[in-house]
């Protein structure tokens, strides 16, 4: 009987947690502070979440593009179609790897930092003191961070894809000797703006929304102790990664599943 009771309790706690995170999201979405105060806060968070993530995004994009170039050349040259390497790299990055890998890297670098920062603010009573000063932490702390993460991920994903294509070109054209005209020409003729680029952008917008939501909620809702913050940070990375991979399948099925 006890396992059944525990299962029921866990189920109820999970539903309560979903409810709380929904309320929390509404508070953050509805609560952007007065632009005079909110805009500088947003810019500061865009710097922390976006600009400071650039290094890992650029380096990862470059190496993933180079690996795609190398692997693509090895496989395609067996069929004498190495000229198609440009379109293969571009489609892989724009449709899939750009949004997905960027979101995973963002969750690991910026999402975990967001959770730890907000959790520590909670543990050191900074959020409580803000409330007691008549300042709503949802507006002052959460909203700028949420919007900054939401805006940063699509831009980072675009940069990731561009750098990845350049990395693929370095390997394919400069190193392995694929004709440059075929590389760019095939890419231009096969990558469609609305069905490939825009679908990639939509994915990265969805991933940015979900990853930032998970990160700020885990920080705000954590148990304010060292163990609680540690657990919340781990949950941010695990839940964000699973959510990104699961949503990627759903979105891909909706966008490209018209067989």
């Amino acid at each position: 009987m006890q396992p059944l009771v525990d299962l029921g309790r866990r189920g109820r706690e999970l539903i309560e947690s979903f409810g709380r995170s929904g309320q929390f999201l509404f508070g953050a979405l509805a609560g952007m502070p007065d632009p005079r105060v909110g805009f500088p806060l947003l810019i500061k968070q865009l710097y922390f979440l976006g600009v400071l993530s650039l290094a890992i995004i650029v380096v990862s994009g470059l190496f993933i593009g180079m690996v795609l170039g190398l692997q693509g050349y090895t496989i395609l040259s067996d069929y004498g179609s190495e000229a198609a390497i440009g379109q293969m790299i571009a489609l892989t990055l724009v449709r899939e790897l750009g949004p997905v890998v960027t979101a995973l890297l963002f969750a690991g670098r910026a999402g975990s930092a967001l959770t730890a920062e907000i959790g520590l603010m909670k543990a050191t009573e900074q959020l409580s003191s803000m409330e007691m000063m008549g300042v709503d932490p949802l507006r002052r702390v959460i909203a700028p961070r949420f919007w900054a993460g939401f805006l940063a991920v699509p831009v980072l994903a675009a940069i990731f894809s561009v750098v990845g294509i350049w990395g693929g070109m370095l390997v394919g054209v400069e190193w392995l000797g694929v004709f440059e005209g075929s590389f760019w020409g095939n890419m231009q003729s096969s990558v469609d703006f609305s069905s490939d680029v825009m679908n990639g952008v939509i994915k990265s917008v969805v991933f940015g929304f979900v990853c930032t939501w998970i990160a700020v909620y885990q920080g705000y809702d954590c148990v304010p102790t060292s163990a609680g913050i540690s657990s919340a940070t781990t949950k941010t990375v695990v839940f964000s990664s699973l959510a990104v991979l699961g949503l990627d399948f759903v979105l891909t099925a909706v966008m490209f599943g018209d067989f």
Partner: protein
Amino acid sequence: MSSTSEAFLRPHIELKDVVFSRGGRRIFDGVSLRIPRGRITAIMGPSGTGKTTLLRLIGGQLKPDSGSIMVDGQSVPDLGRKALYRLRETMGMLFQSGALFTDLSVFENVAFPIRAHTRLPEDMLRDIVLMKLEAVGLRGARDLMPAQLSGGMTRRVALARSIALDPELIMYDEPFAGQDPIAMGVLVKLIRDLNHSMGMTSVMVSHDVPESLSISHYACILSDGQVIGDGTPDELRSHPSDKVQQFLQGHPDGPVPFHYTAVAPEEDWGIAGRGR
């Protein structure tokens, strides 16, 4: 009529039959309390009796299960979000940890509530912040970051921040905990001087008996979810309750037992029936 009695006629804070539970444990079981306006009130009691919880109930960060909490004539649990935040603009709270914003300098920490609630020009804001820092003796520390401050200095900066908007009510959560004698003396002086010069209602939660009784006009002792004694410091010192006397004199054993409830020692060590 004494001035404290007059203050009682129009209490700043009034709690009636407040019941509050958390995590299945009843923390307050019908607490009633009147906190006089413009006076220093000390709320004391053993650790874990819910003294900080009481401040959070007064500030509207927690809601009671039942009972009423009136602050300045307004029922705190019934206030909407906007009204509650407006009421909080008239309150200051000194947290036990100081709760300074670690990414802001001392100056910006004190300026924070002023920037949030007013649109004062920068030069006027600077003058106010420096006046508040001067009041706590830390005008020279304006450019330091919180990580560079000692525990006593952190609490003084937090005090300057909590009086930045000249509140009518200020709540101190364990202001003396973990302070060296000099820092404690400074805080005692500051709390007394601020109450005297600004005339605000001060509610101080503490278990430092001598310091609290030396500056308070009125004090009450909480234990087991109830008020077990209240009155002026002199009235409390001669209170007939054994529990009150045990707390005030710091006896290790008495109505509040030294041992946490446990099974009989014979049972734990398995010595029952040995030697037979």
